[in-house]
């Protein structure tokens, strides 16, 4: 593993997995959102929580980024986006191809049936509260990934 300069979050210490400790890294969150201002706000929110943020404006870009590196811990995605996939399809694609990546899905629809979301993913309705998003991210990143072992092909 090549060394990277990363900020160590003050509040994420107890949640860092062994793998991350070896990398001496902080959790990396990929924000997928087509609206520029919401994306900017989400990135600011992720950084303020002490995580490193990456950004993509649609599913295709998100997949390119996921293919180009292996250190993304969580994808925080919008649902309604232009491009070949919406956020629901993207999250299923990620769950299939990169099972350990945690998923947080936000949408303007107040409720999305749990059945349409990949197992282990979390949902927030828009507009989301920053505290709620940080709480959910913290919980997702603290989980040990055991729930992903049963993911079907």
């Amino acid at each position, binding site marked *: 593993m090549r060394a990277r300069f990363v900020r160590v979050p003050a509040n994420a210490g107890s949640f860092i997995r062994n793998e991350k400790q070896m990398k001496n890294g902080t959790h990396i969150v990929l924000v997928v959102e087509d*609206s520029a*201002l*919401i994306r*900017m*706000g*989400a990135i*600011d*929110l992720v950084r*303020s929580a002490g995580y490193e943020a990456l950004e993509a404006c649609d599913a295709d870009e998100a997949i390119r980024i996921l293919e180009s590196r292996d250190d993304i811990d969580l994808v925080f995605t919008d649902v*309604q986006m232009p491009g070949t996939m919406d956020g629901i399809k993207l999250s299923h694609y990620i769950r299939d191809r990169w099972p350990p990546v945690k998923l947080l899905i936000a*949408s*303007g*629809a*107040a*409720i999305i049936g749990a059945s349409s979301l990949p197992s282990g993913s979390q949902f927030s*309705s*828009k*507009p*989301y*509260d*920053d*505290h*709620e998003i940080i*709480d959910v991210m913290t919980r997702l990143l603290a989980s040990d990934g055991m729930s992903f072992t049963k993911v079907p092909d």
Partner: protein
Amino acid sequence: MSKTPAAHVEAASTLAVVLSSHEPLLYLTADQVIIAASASFCSAFDLELAILPGKRLGAVGNGEWAMPKLASLLEATAAGSAQIDSYEIDLKRPDRKTRNLVVNACTLEDGDTDHIRLLVSVTDVTDARANARLNDDLVREKAVLLQEVQHRVANSLQIIASVLMQSARKVQSEEVRGHLHNAHHRVMSIAAVQRQLSISPGGDVEIRSYLTQLCNSLGASMIADPDRLSISVLVDDSSVTAEVSISLGLIVTELVINALKHAFPDQATGKIVVGYQTKGSDWTLSVTDNGIGMPEGSSAPRAGLGTGIVEALTKNLGGELQLTEANPGTAIRISHCGSVDHHKDIRPAA
């Protein structure tokens, strides 16, 4: 067994009823020979009335009525072993569009078992079905559009909320940050109504779940230590219109923020209770805390934007604002008595 149908005389009144029926009707012998057909049957299926009596059903027109399924069902009906109840069948004619028919048939018995008669109604539902499909499409389209609008509203509110929170994180001044947080709370309070509306199709907002959600989100973002400060919601089962709920939500937002900020400066614990009770068209909204109470005289702070919002919305709702010392703490009550019913479907005066 109709051995001598020619000798049998049909009742003139029966024939007259069949002939004049608005619903396309056929009056048949047990072996499916037409005794009479209604004028409406002939005009619906483009047949000549005069030549029908005496013809077998299968020989009518160009033989398009010779449908094996229909024939066997009519045979079974005549024999008493089946009943045709809203049976759907397609009428196919050359150079014409297929028509969807609904067929009902029963036997007419007047005690004469040798002369069993079939009364068959044939309704062309092609156009009605097409209309129903069109209606379904329109309803579906409307639902899709509504959902689209809700998405847009949610996204717009998200942009506003995101920008406000980014500013709040970036500014240096604690006071300005406080104002930006308050603005964010107000936006989120309206957003919560939007959310309630999108999951309750009637356009009304269930006030208990709305205020609970609102107070949970206020608490989550403003209370650092939930063991120290708590907000509880005591609300009855009523629902209000969207406009009224927006006002009630904003009032609660202001009063709860105010209590969290000022009522418990040094207290070990504190409790805020948000209440909403109705009695007929009267209602009372209350926010009570067990904190230090309102400062008086020269130590009272200048009325801020929050006070202005509460007063303006109270007036708009036709309510009366009442502030009492709860010892300990403060009780703020907004009561509405009068003729304007804010509940259920009745829209308030603008």
